[in-house]
């Protein structure tokens, strides 16, 4: 069974953050747009309503809003000599599916990269010499600058109603903000969130050590906000069910709360759910896309959907998978370094120290996804890579997002994992610990990449995508440096006891415990078609009517959570399409 549907001007693959942004921006041009979402439809009511969604087992542990490996997964190996095994159960990262994508179940931590992160290779070569870059490290420049992207960060942050405190407005350093950030044109739209006890304790200690604490920028509204599309957010009530959950309260910025109701009012926009795109169809000469082919679950048939413009707006992994399956860009070969699609997959290097206080009531359940006080005194632009022997940096933060008990209760080292001692431990220590975390860069390496698996297939018979990734000495040295800094701060805070968890020499990637859903690279942006998969407007080099949004564009991972940059790049690409591409379709670079 197969059918061909009438042609559209634009087909958008995936209706999360980037698909929603591109959808509404192009809908304003009057184009006929169809968005295809592989998962179900989702709305605040009924899907996130109180009290249904306040169910830790259903959503926090059984991953109710995440992709199901049975329908979609990858294979993983740590190096080219290992046989990749399928990720049969979710663990290390949690891609979403359904309308809103991961934009419904994130914490809302919304950052801008440092200026030097966009031109990391050039920066390192200029400041420390080309010899500072290890032979197997394949870092690249993005092809855009912080200054060029500033208006698009501003647009995203005002659309999403971000709560925060500016540290640098047009070069003027603002007390209480991040003094090391790239200049921004104005303050955040909303003031910072209230802070939790742990965040205040950390900020006090950091300040007394001469550091510069500031509130973590939050897509959890501190006050009511109405955005440019007329969408309204209400103030966050610190429900303590943010990450992994849809927001009960219209407070977390998401496609649902910030864009979708406005978008659905455009008669020239429509979307289909349970419609998984199988491939991008190319013209016989391969120079353009003719549309996409997708699987219509409801009809039980393949559908050919012609379109003039194809926007890949799925999660990073799925965009790269579709490119590999469709022949968009030459597949990257780690042996030769040739090819671009799948190149420079990177992750995130995080660590943390837990502090125990018998006599402090942290009330961890009174949390918000992005609450917290951070310092950037050890950011990627503050470290002498030559002296320290690594390239990279981290922000350091304390802020309590939740107190959900199944997801874990921190217990002092030596507490049994089960039995009477465990039960006594949870009674004594629930609500009496806090943690200080580092959230750091993860750079790109010759062998860390994405390609098609030779053995395993998905429910449509397509090869699964294969991830080759392991932790590297440079990034381990970076996180060990952060360990030293965090432990100094922790000791100054006089806890009853404390313990650390940072990757150390020889650490191997483990896909079982949750780490972070910050998968980047594989569809990297740049200025040279020989070394990047898309140009600086996220346009495929070989097919000018295909644009690839999302964190796949990052040539290596930044030290921050990716969504701020993902949103800014979506607006950056939307402007290029609206103002430059539509009047004169063709390569933009």
């Amino acid at each position, binding site marked *: 069974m197969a059918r061909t549907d009438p042609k559209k001007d634009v087909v958008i693959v995936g209706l999360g953050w980037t698909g929603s942004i591109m959808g509404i921006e192009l809908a304003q041009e009057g184009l006929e747009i169809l968005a295809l979402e592989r998962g179900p439809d989702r709305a605040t009511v009924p899907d996130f309503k*109180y*009290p249904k969604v*306040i*169910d*830790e*087992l259903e959503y926090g*542990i*059984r*991953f109710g809003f995440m992709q*199901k*490996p*049975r329908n979609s997964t990858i294979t*993983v*190996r*740590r190096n080219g000599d*290992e*046989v990749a*095994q*399928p*990720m*049969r*159960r979710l*663990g290390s990262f949690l891609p979403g599916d359904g309308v809103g994508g991961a934009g419904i179940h994130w914490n809302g931590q919304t950052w801008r990269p440092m200026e030097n992160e966009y031109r990391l290779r050039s920066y390192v070569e200029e400041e420390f010499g080309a010899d500072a870059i290890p032979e197997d490290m394949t870092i690249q420049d993005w092809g855009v600058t912080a200054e060029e992207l500033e208006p698009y960060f501003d647009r995203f942050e005002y659309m999403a109603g971000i709560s925060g405190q500016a540290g640098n407005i047009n070069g003027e350093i603002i007390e209480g903000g991040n003094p090391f950030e790239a200049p921004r044109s104005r303050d955040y739209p909303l003031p910072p*969130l*209230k*802070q*939790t*006890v742990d*965040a*205040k304790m950390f900020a006090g200690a950091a300040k007394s050590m001469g550091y510069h604490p500031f509130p973590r920028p939050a897509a959890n509204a501190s006050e009511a906000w109405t955005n440019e599309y007329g969408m309204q957010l209400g103030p966050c*009530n*610190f*429900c*303590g069910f943010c990450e992994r959950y849809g927001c*009960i309260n219209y407070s977390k910025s998401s496609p649902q709360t910030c864009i979708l109701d406005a978008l659905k009012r455009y008669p020239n926009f429509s979307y289909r759910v349970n419609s998984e795109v199988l491939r991008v169809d190319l013209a016989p000469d391969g120079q353009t896309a003719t549309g996409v082919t997708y699987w219509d679950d409801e009809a039980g048939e393949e559908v050919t959907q012609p379109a003039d413009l194809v926007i890949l707006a799925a999660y990073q992994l799925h965009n790269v998978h579709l490119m590999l399956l469709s022949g968009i860009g030459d597949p990257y070969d780690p042996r030769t370094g040739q090819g671009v699609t799948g190149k420079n997959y990177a992750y995130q290097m995080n660590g943390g120290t837990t502090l125990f206080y018998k006599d402090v*009531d*942290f*009330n961890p*359940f*009174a*949390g*918000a996804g992005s609450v917290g006080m951070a310092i950037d005194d050890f950011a990627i632009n503050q470290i002498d890579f030559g002296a320290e022997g690594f390239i990279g940096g981290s922000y350091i933060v304390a802020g309590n997002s939740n*107190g959900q*008990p*199944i997801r874990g*209760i921190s217990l002092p080292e030596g507490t049994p*994992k089960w*039995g*009477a001692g465990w*039960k*006594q431990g*949870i*009674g004594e220590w*629930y609500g009496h610990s806090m943690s200080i975390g580092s959230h750091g860069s993860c750079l790109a390496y010759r062998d860390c990449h994405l390609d098609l698996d030779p*053995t*395993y297939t998905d429910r449509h018979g397509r090869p699964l995508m294969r991830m080759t990734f392991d932790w590297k000495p440079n990034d381990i040295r970076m996180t060990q440096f952060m360990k030293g800094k965090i432990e100094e701060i922790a000791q100054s805070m006089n806890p009853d006891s404390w313990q650390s968890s940072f990757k150390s020499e020889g650490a191997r*990637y*483990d*896909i*079982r415990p949750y780490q972070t859903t910050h998968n980047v690279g594989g569809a990297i942006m740049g200025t040279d078609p020989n070394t990047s998969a898309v140009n600086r407007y996220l346009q495929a080099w070989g097919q000018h009517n295909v644009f690839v949004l999302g964190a796949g564009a990052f040539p290596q991972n930044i030290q921050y959570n990716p969504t701020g940059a993902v949103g800014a790049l979506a607006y950056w690409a939307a402007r290029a399409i609206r103002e430059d591409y539509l009047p004169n379709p063709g390569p933009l670079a």
Partner: protein
Amino acid sequence: MTPRFLQTSRRAFLGGSAAAAALAALSEGAQAQQPLPPLEEYAPVFLTPAEWAFVMAATARIIPSDGDGPGAQETRVPVFIDRQLAGDFGAATDLYMQGPFTPDADMNLGTQSPLTPAEIYRQGIAAFETWCSNELGAAFADLPADQQDSALQALADDDVGLEPELREFWTLLLQNTKEGYFADPRHGGNAGMQAWVYIGFPGARANFHEWAGRDEAYPLGPVDIAGERA
């Protein structure tokens, strides 16, 4: 011993605060709840009688009843586990179950067993019971508590000769026991929200704006998704 949460509320009550008055009202609500039938009368959906006896005995050692706080028995963790195994979790509904399977692959690459969680329990219990019988001379449930503990420790240490297909058995049993202890009561465990009361987790209240940043004990007991209070 009185759970810490109740000690706290008693102090708050003596203080005459509005929160304590609200708590007194909540306690009446809790008393009005219908009592659940005794655990012994529960008819398992998935587990056989022998498997049920094992799960009852094993969870009672993983979270024992003595000492502060409720145990797995009082919170009806075995009911939770039986229901999970009978449902989507047990059937691996969400998992990628296409072969080829390499069950002895490096642990870091995640579970590679061809068996569903329900099958892992079924075969894992049988294999562990055989080990208990051969090494300790009795079914697990019939062993004295200290021998049960050392047998479970051997299981946790992968020292009972389980096939690679079953090596997740202990991890699942431990994780599911803690899930049943802490999950919303709608899933069959955490009866009366006792585990939440014990640690001081307010359950599904989900509204704490005025409590962010306050270093003082939260005075209200939990509510669950059904609207019950404890």
